[in-house]
């Protein structure tokens, strides 16, 4: 643990030295991140917020930022347990050398090595062998920014078709051009002082996106941010996404994280998203996490909601050896409405961790939360959801549900639904359940001639679909269904042959 911390402190210091020409405010943010990381250290099971999280895949790795990872020496070490942020990951020594002794440009690596290994260790099997095919498969119609191994890939990105009033910028550009705006935004919602991984993200602040909506802007096309990791270098990607939605604006943001299977190595994505919703603004946020099986993914979404604003978060966690999905929503004005939905589907030895916190700080806000887990093999799913109703937040109406389906004898689920209520005129309820498929329902299907395996699939899909169907029909839902189909065999609509 200490050595992992030392590694990241080191990585951050090297990064700061490399980018000595950064503007003063940015240097300050990064230095503060570093200081906070040093102060807090990396979390362990002894921290209440990480009690059920096994951080071994993270601590065991030496990940490097994009600029260094490629130069980190033999990949083998990296795979066994070291991670680096992006600017280090792609540094000096050629990847392919490390892997096979021959230098092959990443685009061709797939072709050269054959797909078998790559596909096995990765969630998304690469399409025609290059990233544009992957982008075509995962991408949505409309504007998008694509990041590969923690770095913006302009050739894969597209900013055409941006509606009037909507600004989408790579963070790199924004850091240069909108210094003042960013200075006021970065770290406002996600506090480096409270989260070690947010501190690490701040210390390595460089890549990401800025999305701004002018008051009254209605964007019908979803804005997509696509983060791809190739797994052929121990990259540490630290994207920071900043969203400011002006009064009465409405938009859809889709964050997709995918491993594209060039190499079998582990990567580490540590993403932070900060959202500020103005009065009566509305944001639909989707997070599709389909990282490679060896990957570590830590993502935190922090939202502050203005008066009468509406926020809907749909978080799908499918990939990663270790995945931590955090959603923190705070009501700052009366009449706000928040929906937090999540689906985590794990197999093998995956550990899928979910943490949500709803802060009802003002009266008359409504929140609904539904998190469901499907866990097979030796996978472990964790849910910790906090609803906090502060004094005087009267007329709060909050409901939270967590359901876990265990498909194998060795799967595990931990649930911690938590209520903290300091006002009296409130309606709050939470429920949590862990169980396996209903024997009676299975019997019903089998008595009608549906084979056991098929019946199990049907019931499992039905369980998961409740969350999928909360996504309005359209291209986003299709992508979710596509990813789920890869994860839960038979979950794509398919004919039942009795």
């Amino acid at each position, binding site marked *: 643990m200490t050595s992992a911390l030392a590694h990241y402190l080191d990585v951050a210091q090297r990064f700061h030295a490399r980018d000595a020409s950064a503007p003063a405010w940015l240097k300050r943010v990064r230095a503060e991140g570093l200081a906070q990381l040093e102060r807090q250290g990396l979390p362990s099971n002894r921290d209440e917020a990480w009690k059920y999280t096994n951080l071994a895949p993270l601590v065991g790795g030496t990940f490097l930022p994009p600029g260094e990872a490629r130069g980190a020496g033999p990949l083998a070490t990296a795979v066994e347990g070291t991670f680096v942020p992006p600017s280090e990951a792609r540094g000096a020594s050629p990847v392919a050398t490390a892997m096979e002794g021959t230098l092959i440009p990443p685009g061709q690596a797939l072709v050269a090595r054959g797909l078998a290994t790559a596909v096995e260790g990765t969630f998304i099997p690469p399409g025609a062998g290059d990233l544009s095919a992957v982008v075509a498969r995962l991408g949505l119609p409309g504007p998008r920014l694509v990041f590969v191994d923690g770095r913006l890939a302009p050739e894969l990105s597209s900013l055409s078709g941006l509606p009037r009033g909507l600004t989408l910028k790579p963070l790199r550009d924004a850091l240069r051009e909108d210094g003042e705006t960013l200075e006021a935004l970065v770290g406002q919602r996600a506090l480096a002082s409270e989260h070690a991984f947010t501190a690490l993200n701040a210390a390595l602040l460089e890549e990401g996106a800025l999305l701004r909506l002018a008051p009254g802007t209605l964007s019908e096309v979803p804005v997509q941010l696509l983060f791809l990791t190739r797994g052929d270098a121990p990259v540490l990607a630290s994207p920071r996404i900043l969203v400011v939605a002006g009064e009465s604006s409405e938009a859809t943001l889709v964050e997709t994280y995918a491993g594209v299977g060039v190499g079998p190595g582990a990567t580490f994505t540590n993403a932070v998203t900060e959202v500020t919703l103005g009065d009566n603004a509305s944001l639909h946020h989707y997070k599709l996490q389909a990282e490679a099986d060896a990957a570590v993914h830590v993502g935190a979404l922090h939202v502050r909601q203005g008066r009468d604003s509406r926020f809907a978060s749909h978080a799908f966690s499918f990939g990663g050896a270790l995945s931590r999905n955090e959603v923190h929503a705070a009501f700052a004005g009366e009449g706000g409405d928040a929906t937090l939905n999540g689906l985590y589907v794990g197999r093998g030895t995956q550990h899928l961790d979910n943490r949500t916190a709803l802060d009802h700080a003002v009266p008359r806000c409504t929140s609904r939360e539904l998190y469901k887990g499907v866990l097979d093999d030796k996978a472990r799913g964790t849910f910790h959801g906090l609803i906090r109703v502060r004094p005087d937040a009267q007329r709060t109406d909050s409901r939270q549900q967590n359901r*876990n389906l265990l498909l194998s004898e*060795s799967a595990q689920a931990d*649930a911690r639904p938590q*209520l903290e209520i300091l*006002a*009296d005129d409130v309606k709050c309820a939470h429920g*949590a*359940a*862990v169980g396996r498929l209903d024997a009676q329902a299975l019997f019903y299907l089998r008595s009608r001639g549906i084979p056991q395996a098929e019946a199990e699939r049907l019931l499992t899909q039905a369980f998961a679909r409740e969350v999928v169907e909360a996504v309005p029909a359209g291209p986003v839902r299709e992508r979710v269904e596509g990813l789920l189909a890869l994860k839960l065999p038979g979950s794509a609509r398919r004919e039942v042959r009795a």
Partner: protein
Amino acid sequence: MTTDTLQELTRRPYEAGFVTAVESDTFPPGLNEDVIRQLSEKKGEPAFLLEWRLKAFRHWLTMKEPNWQAVKYTPIDYQAISYYSAPKQKPKKGSLDEVDPEILRTYEKLGIPLHEQKLLQNVAVDAVFDSVSVATTFKDKLAKAGVIFCSFSEAVREHPELVKKYLGSVVPYSDNFFAALNSAVFSDGSFVYIPKGVRCPMELSTYFRINAAETGQFERTLIVADEGATVSYLEGCTAPQRDTNQLHAAVVELVALDGATIKYSTVQNWYPGDAEGRGGIYNFVTKRGIAHRGAKISWTQVETGSAITWKYPSVILKGDDSVGEFYSVALTNNLQQADTGTKMVHIGKNTRSTIVSKGISAGRGQNTYRGLVKVLKSAENARNYTQCDSLLLGDKCGAHTVPYIEVKNASAQVEHEASTSKIGEDQLFYCRQRGISQEDAVSMIVNGFCRQVFKELPMEFAVEAQKLLGVSLEGSVG
């Protein structure tokens, strides 16, 4: 309801808050190995027990006071507490004639007459006054059935083999900070042993009374139900009204061997402190039972007193087909804080547990349910149902629910439900419309809210609990 009536009603006096004028033999405040040796010597304990106490004390010195619970209190100075206080009296002879009449009057005033002829039918009582047991009733009748019911000190003298075998077998001295402290300095308590296949002919009960000032009460209860035995045990507690805080750190261990049933009910009414939060008992209690094959352990608690309540009566469902239950009503008024709940650890196959927790917060009280349901890999077909409801009376109080669910076996079925609400205006209006006074209406609704738990209490206790709740709460609706 107006705030005035609310305040008036919540200001009801604590009826058990008087002090008994009795000469007592009290150790000076302070804790070190010599105090423990002195205590052990005073009680004429065998060497193994003193050794055990010292081990516990040495371990305690290495431990830190826990700080994860949702309660705030001024730090306890463990050197300012006297660890032994006993009313001066001749050695117990099993006859009430020897007991100081002043003490007998105390129990009478509390509604616990110790004269057997006046006793509630069929309840045997062990009365613990400060650090010692002053009287145990119906001993002869119980002895005929083979039941051992006596003070802990007596058990140490008369049945050292049983004490040695089971003491610390459920709550080891190293378990937690307060359990370690208790293990080092516990003074008295009750001991129960029910032999194989015996159904205890009457309810057993211990009444704990703290009287002396500046003392702590550290009692230890050990109940062993041998194979196929059944026992129902009740516990009640009160203390005088004082401006200073007193520490109560008890340990209760239950052992239910194959097929045994233990029902443990508590009505806890320690002095809760005044409306400004001055005084009151700090109640840090460790209660745990172990259920062997086919055994059943049921905890029922009504927690209305104490400035601070910190207790998690737990069941280790070790044997196949064992059953654990936890029914709780916890009430916090004024500045009371309660952090209570249970732990159900499923180890055996087909183990079942039920948790019903009702929290009521009024005034500026803070009420936390904290519970753990853990299903280990070996616990095939484990079942748990948990329900935690909170009722908020007033806008200055808080209700918190912190359940932990850990499932490592796919065949388990675990359900948790919780809700928080206040008494609805429409409910009150409905009652008022039918000519029921506001006060009675609230009392009815609150009693209805707690009904599921009260019906688990033995009859006499259920009546007492309802009265208590009425006293502590009546009309405290904003």
